[in-house]
């Protein structure tokens, strides 16, 4: 598993990678490890908008359903349709199995308080 350069992580275990005003968002490897076998995912519709810290998706393991929070505000431009039928891809590689792509409202401001991956790892361990 490759950890992409420049990702930022939230305390609620989402990662976000911003490039050319497009933010790719997923769930951290640590969170995926805690959840275990992922068997179901519910993703938002393209075009829907979310505020930072709002629930935008649900991921279910065998044991429980978990809500996923937006690390930044913005409009969903793409969802990873492949995960609908193959949610287990998230278990295989949490960083290549992104959930949504978002057009950020104000990435600069929203990314304040997000942690670099190494700092995030220190925090959760």
């Amino acid at each position, binding site marked *: 598993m490759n950890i992409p350069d420049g990702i930022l992580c939230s305390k609620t275990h989402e990662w976000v990678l911003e490039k050319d005003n497009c933010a790719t968002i997923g769930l951290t490897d640590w969170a995926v490890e*805690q959840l*275990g*076998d992922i*068997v*179901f995912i*519910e993703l938002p519709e393209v075009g829907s908008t979310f505020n930072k810290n709002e629930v935008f998706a649900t991921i279910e*393991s*065998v*044991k429980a*359903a978990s809500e996923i929070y937006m690390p930044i505000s913005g409009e969903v431009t793409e969802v990873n349709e492949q995960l609908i039928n193959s949610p287990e891809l998230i278990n295989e590689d949490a960083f290549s199995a992104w959930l949504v792509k978002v057009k950020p409202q104000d990435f600069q401001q929203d990314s304040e308080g997000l942690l670099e991956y190494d700092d995030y790892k220190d925090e959760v361990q």
Partner: protein
Amino acid sequence: MTTTDKKTSLYDEHIKLGAKMVPFGGWIMPVQYEGIIKEHNATRNFAGLFDVSHMGEVYIKGKESLEFLESIVPQNLKDLKEGQAIYCQLPNKEGGLIDDLIIYNAKNIIDDVDYLIVINASRIEYDIPFMQKEAQNFGAEVINKSDDFSMLALQGPNSQYIIEKMGINLENQPKFFTFKKAFLDDCPVFLTRTGYTGEDGFEIIFEHKYASKLWNKILSYKDEFNVVPVGLGARDTLRLEAGLPLYGHELNENTTPIESSLGFFIPQEKDADYNGKALILKQKLKQTPLRRKLFAFVMEDRQIARNGYEVYIDNKKVGVVTSGAPSPTLGKNIGFCMIKFENLPSDLVAKLNNIKESIGTPIQIMVRNKLYNAKIVKKPFIKKNYKK
């Protein structure tokens, strides 16, 4: 996890294997080792080893042991022969359930003991005082042995071959729902042919000092018989697929065994009086209407139903999901729900009261504020593979 959660004798073994530990019924227990689905499938296809040391054990002795037990469970125990076991329930005076349990006739097997009872971990503190109070009317003694024993469950089609390797050949192994005293790899144990997975298998009760030795010996057959350690996560999906109830979910103090769909286990004829007998038997004989009933269901939409989700029929709230999970064996999402009959149209109640007619009834489950389709099905969800 609180500091008061108890550790089983195998706690260090679970940590060594990298298990995820969670609090359960006052204990800190492994929920999974390598993954729930893998552990589930290994148990169905090969063998799974479970630490179930949290379960409670009770000895009953005294000259009126039989009369005492007959007064607290709906089952007939007169015909339970030495070494035989029977699945029972422990009703309160109103017919609701304090616990479900397995009673073993231990005469001439455990020294100076008439019956062994295995009870749920979370119910030990309720069962013991209740039984001790009830026993005051009889020449019988209730002894809580829960702190004295560890317990393993070895489940799945390869279990019998592992037990054979450990010194008991197939002919000498206890048959379905019986038990015997035995030596497994030189460790003295009570070996029972029971379980909670719908597979053939054993439960093994022994003193704590043998726990690590037996655990590691059984797991040493992993290459030969594909046995893996299994946590509470897969224990739950395995028992759910097999249609077996879990106390606190499908069973509780306000619901009779008939309402919890355990009517099959309740004999119509029993001489002795027992707690809740009047209501339980009237319900069994359909002489009084049920207040609610437990049903098995399969999701038709892709969503997963979970414990506590609301159940609807024709957009009207009628009940609640008591257990729900993805079924690794079926590749469908399954569950149990309790449907309340009050305020339902009488033709619908009549249909739901008839097991055959109830099958296929459409219901909806509220998942994250939206209704999704499901239908009532027959339990168990899978065919049981007991070796009888």
